[in-house]
C-alpha cells in the first residue's frame, strides 16, 4: 500500500517537473530575442546584480514582499545578510537593488 503511494508521489513530482521544463523551454526564445545595447547593459548592471542576489538568496525561501518603505531597506538587507549568509559585496548589491 505504502509503496503504491510512494510511486504515485514520484510520478506526480515527475509530471510537475516536466511541466516546469516545458514552461522554461517556452520562455527561452523570448529571452533570446531580448537585445539590449551595450550602454543599456552597462547602466543596468548594478541593478541586475542586486536582482541576481535577491533571486539566488532571498527567493530561495520566500517570495518578495510587494513593496516596503525605503527607510527599512538597510535593516532588511542586514537581516538577510545574517539569515542568508550574504557576503559584503552581495549585501551592497542588494541594498542598491532596493534603493536604485
Amino acid at each position, binding site marked *: *500500500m*505504502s509503496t503504491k*503511494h*510512494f510511486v*504515485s*508521489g*514520484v510520478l*506526480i*513530482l515527475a509530471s*510537475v*517537473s516536466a*511541466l*516546469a*521544463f516545458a*514552461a*522554461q523551454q*517556452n*520562455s527561452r526564445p523570448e*529571452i533570446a530575442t531580448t537585445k539590449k545595447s551595450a550602454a543599456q547593459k552597462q547602466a543596468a548592471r548594478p541593478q541586475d546584480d542586486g536582482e*541576481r542576489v535577491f533571486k*539566488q538568496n532571498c*527567493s*530561495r*525561501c*520566500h*517570495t518578495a*514582499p*510587494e513593496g*516596503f*518603505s*525605503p*527607510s*527599512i*531597506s*538597510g*535593516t*532588511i538587507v*542586514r*537581516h538577510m*545578510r*545574517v*539569515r*542568508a*549568509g*550574504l*557576503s*559584503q*559585496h*552581495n549585501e551592497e548589491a542588494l*541594498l542598491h537593488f532596493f*534603493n536604485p
Partner: protein
Amino acid sequence: MLRPALELKPRALAHASRILLFALTALAIAHHGSAQDTPLISGGVGFFTSTNGGSTSYYPIIEPLLAAPLGQHVLVESRAALLEFYSPNGGDQPGYDHSHFIGITYLQGDYVASSHLTVVAGDFLIPFNTYNDRLSPIWIGNFQDGPLIANLNFSSSGSGLGGMLRGNAIQRSKYSIDYNYYYSARSANEQFSASRGSGGRAVVYLPEQRLEVGFSYDRLLQGTHENFYGAHVWWEPKDTGFRLRSEFGRGQHAQGYWVEADYRTHAFGGPDSAIGRIEPVFRIQQAFRLDTVASDGLPAANTQRADFGIDYNLPHNTRIITSYARQFSATGNQNIWETGIVYRFLFPAWKGKQQ
C-alpha cells in the same frame, strides 16, 4: 511550525513584559541609525482551520517579527507567536473549547564580525536541515503543517540557548559554501527552554543550476547522548516558477524524509496574473521508528503522508492556503483538510529619517 508555547500566566506575563522592555530599549537605541536602518516590524497574521475525522478546529494566529539594527554591525531580532485555539469538545459534549498561547520563538543578537563571520548569541532557532529556521514562518510555508520530521534534532523545542557562528565561507561565481556551528546550554526557563547540545550545517549552492545541497549534524550532550544527521537538496530551476525541496533526517530512534514541490506558471501573463497566482503544491513524506523509544517528535508508529494543496497568492501580500492530506499509519489512517489565509506585513517601527 510553532515552537511550544505556554498559557498566559502571571509569571509568563512578567517574562513577556521584560522581553518587551528589552525590545523597546533596543528600538530606542536603534533610533540613531542611518536613514535606511529604521527598525522594522514584520511577520504574518493568519486564520487557519483543520478538519480531521469530522471535527474542525480553528485558530487565528499572529507571528510578529522585530528586527532592530544597532550601529554598523549589530542586529537584534525576535519572533513571537500568539494564537487562540478553538477545538470541539470531546465525547458527546456540544460546543467548542478554546485556549490561548503566547510564546517567544526566538530572541537573538547578531554581530556581523566580517564578510565571512557573524556571531549570534541568545535564543536561536536551531539550523538543523532547513524547515526549522528557514520555512517555519506562517507567511513562508506552503502548507499549514510542518513536515513530520520538523522536530527531529537534539532539542525538541526547536531552539537553542547559547551561541552560534555562521556565515559565508566561500563565495565564487560558480558556487558558494555557507556554514554554521552552534552550542546550546540546558535551560528550563519557560520562554527559553533548551537542551544542551551542539551541531552545525554546511550548505553548497550552485547558482547557475539553482541547486542547493546541505548536510546537518548535531549531538545531544545531556542524559543519554544522541546523534542526529540530516541532509537536504533544493532545486529551483531558473525562470520556471518551479521549486523542489527535500530533506532527510535521522535520529537515534527514528528517521524520515519529505519531498515538496510547488509551481507558479510564468505563462498566461506571468506569475502575477490571475492564473499565475495559483500555486499547486505537493508534499510526500514518510517517518519510520527505529525502536520503541519515542523521545523525539516523530509519530509513535511508521507513518506515510501525502499532501495535495492549492495556494492562491492574492495581491497585497495575502495568501490563501488549502490542502488535503491522506495519512497512513498503524495507529489509524486519516483524512486531513486544511484551509487558511495569511497576510504578511512589513513596515517601519516608526517614521524614518528623510534621506
